[in-house]
């Protein structure tokens, strides 16, 4: 063990050790290994999180259609079971590898490190990690990403940020998806933005519809800007 963590002191009849042993240390250690592995290639790594069914995979497909001639994109997509999402993403012309978590509700860094052994990532501009649909557990697991992006669909209700604060606290961007449904659902972009920025004042917000294309230019510009920043580091 590398760090000094022990501070021996006797208390009564027991020997007492004060420690700072971090229970997520194993994951954080692997996350650092992922960063080190990708560092020489200047790849922008984005961890895309949301509830199930908020449109992550559809957004990956639309992103592929719009950017595949400008940027080299790759996706690692996590699901508890099946290869269905990877098949959909490959149909959009993007390299994609499915991570089947075997029932687990989040991706851990070790799964990404192993996936990279089977994925041609070296020439990528952006590596998307499409996390398992879940706003709780993925928030605790660093995957070595540059930024976390959280999608929230207009059908989910605009009260999500305060219910899942850690996810929004650790995100760089909130994407409000399914904006084509706004006329039909009681969802306020102003309300969700206000709630989310009470948790994370620096959060970027983009509203999109993968169906009618609204906001996708802004989304693609955001991605291209972050790629530019990454390359100039």
């Amino acid at each position: 063990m590398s760090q000094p963590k022990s501070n021996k002191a006797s208390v009564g009849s027991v020997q007492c050790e004060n420690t700072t042993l971090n229970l997520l240390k194993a994951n954080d250690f692997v996350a650092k290994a992922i960063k080190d592995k990708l560092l020489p290639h200047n790849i922008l790594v984005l961890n895309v999180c949301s509830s199930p069914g908020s449109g992550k995979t559809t957004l990956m497909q639309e992103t592929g259609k719009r950017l595949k001639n400008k940027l080299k994109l790759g996706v690692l997509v996590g699901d508890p079971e099946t290869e269905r999402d990877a098949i959909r993403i490959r149909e959009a012309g993007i390299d994609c590898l499915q991570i089947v978590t075997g029932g687990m509700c989040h991706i851990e860094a070790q799964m990404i490190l192993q996936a990279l052994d089977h994925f041609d990532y070296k020439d990528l501009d952006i590596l998307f990690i499409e996390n398992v649909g879940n706003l709780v557990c993925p928030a605790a697991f660093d995957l070595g990403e540059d930024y976390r992006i959280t999608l929230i669909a207009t059908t989910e209700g605009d009260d999500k940020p305060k219910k899942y604060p850690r996810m929004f606290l650790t995100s760089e961007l909130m994407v409000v998806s399914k904006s084509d449904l706004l006329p039909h659902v009681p969802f306020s972009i102003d309300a969700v933005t206000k709630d989310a920025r009470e948790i994370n004042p620096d959060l970027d917000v983009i509203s999109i519809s993968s169906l009618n294309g609204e906001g996708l230019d802004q989304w693609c510009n955001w991605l291209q800007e972050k790629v530019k920043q990454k390359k100039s580091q």
Partner: protein
Amino acid sequence: MHEISLVRNIFKTLEAEFPDTYQNIRNIYLTAGELSNVQPILMKNAFDAVILDEPKYAKTILHVEVLPVIIYCDDCNQKTPVIQYKFICSICNKPSKNVIQGEELLISKVEFEK
């Protein structure tokens, strides 16, 4: 969230840190920030379930302390508590996401039987 695997992580971590003495551990103090999503009662239930399979920890007790979220305001140079997940300084109302307490998940202390 993942109480059973967290309990197993606690044991793995302690066995790596105290390879010769972990069997004498009687009290484990876990410090969990409010943002770690750890519920003390669920952790204790999971602990009791796991030690059924790990008799070497049968005499060990888990204590869980949840720490509230605290942020640091650069303008006021003050630590202030986060209430109802509003990440704003309670003195000047300026937003801050400089979390100095509330994300941790640590074994803060262990006690050994002599």
